[in-house]
């Protein structure tokens, strides 16, 4: 990931966040399962993978001071099981950027691939930014 976070104002349609690579280690998955209060098996919960993808985006973009970002909706499609210990690569691009009065809205498309470049999941997140 880039050292310098892009600002909300700098984001434009088509912008691709720097791809982020995660190793879905047993300890990371265990921490996730504890947080969501759920039991697991030898595969990574699909929403743990989504969480990594979203973190890749939030970690590389900064909001104006005092602004909050609210997750308004989420669409996801899962394509394959991901074993614990696998490495994934997350890609996120800005599909739409809408401003209505004091409300900003970002629609982001995400794709996650495994080490063999096979698609693991894709999705679309809508983030509302009341300014």
């Amino acid at each position, binding site marked *: 990931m880039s050292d310098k976070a892009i600002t909300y104002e700098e984001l434009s349609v088509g912008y691709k966040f720097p791809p982020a690579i995660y190793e879905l280690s047993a300890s990371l998955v265990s*921490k996730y399962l504890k*947080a969501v*209060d759920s039991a697991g098996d030898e595969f990574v919960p*699909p929403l743990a993978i989504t*969480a990594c993808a979203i973190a890749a985006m939030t970690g590389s973009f900064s909001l104006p001071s005092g602004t909050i*970002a*609210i997750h308004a*909706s*989420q669409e996801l499609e*899962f394509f394959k099981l991901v074993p614990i210990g696998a490495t994934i690569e997350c890609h996120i691009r800005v599909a739409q950027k809408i401003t209505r009065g004091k409300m900003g809205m970002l629609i982001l498309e995400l794709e996650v691939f495994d080490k063999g470049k096979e698609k693991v999941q894709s999705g679309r997140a809508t983030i509302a930014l009341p300014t």
Partner: protein
Amino acid sequence: MLTEIQEGKALNPVVKHITQEKINLYAEASGDFNPIHVDESFAAKTPLGGTIAHGMLNLAYVSEMMTSAFGRGWSSEGKLRAKFKEPARPGDTLTINGKIGCVEQKDDVSYANCSFECRNQKGETIVTAEAIVKF
């Protein structure tokens, strides 16, 4: 896992209690440290008036229900669409109810369409979701 998949069948409900500790754990696990989730003094000054749970934490409970009902088919070939209607806050108890709305067949493959509603203890809708899974 469900032994019988039929239209109108209710899925086993999930009840979860939201605490700031769980929100903080989710922030650590996901890497999402947005202050609206973890910084109580920051969050108190926003229109939300306090910290809220990550939407994806609430949605994880829907995914848990789908995994319980459909097993690995959910994680390997599922589709999910969710709207976050209201924030869940520390102290809330969330109840997630779901049911199989319809069962369809396409090219000899069966699909279950499920709908979910996550409500807090006041009856407010926190998340609505729809999911499709092959079985």
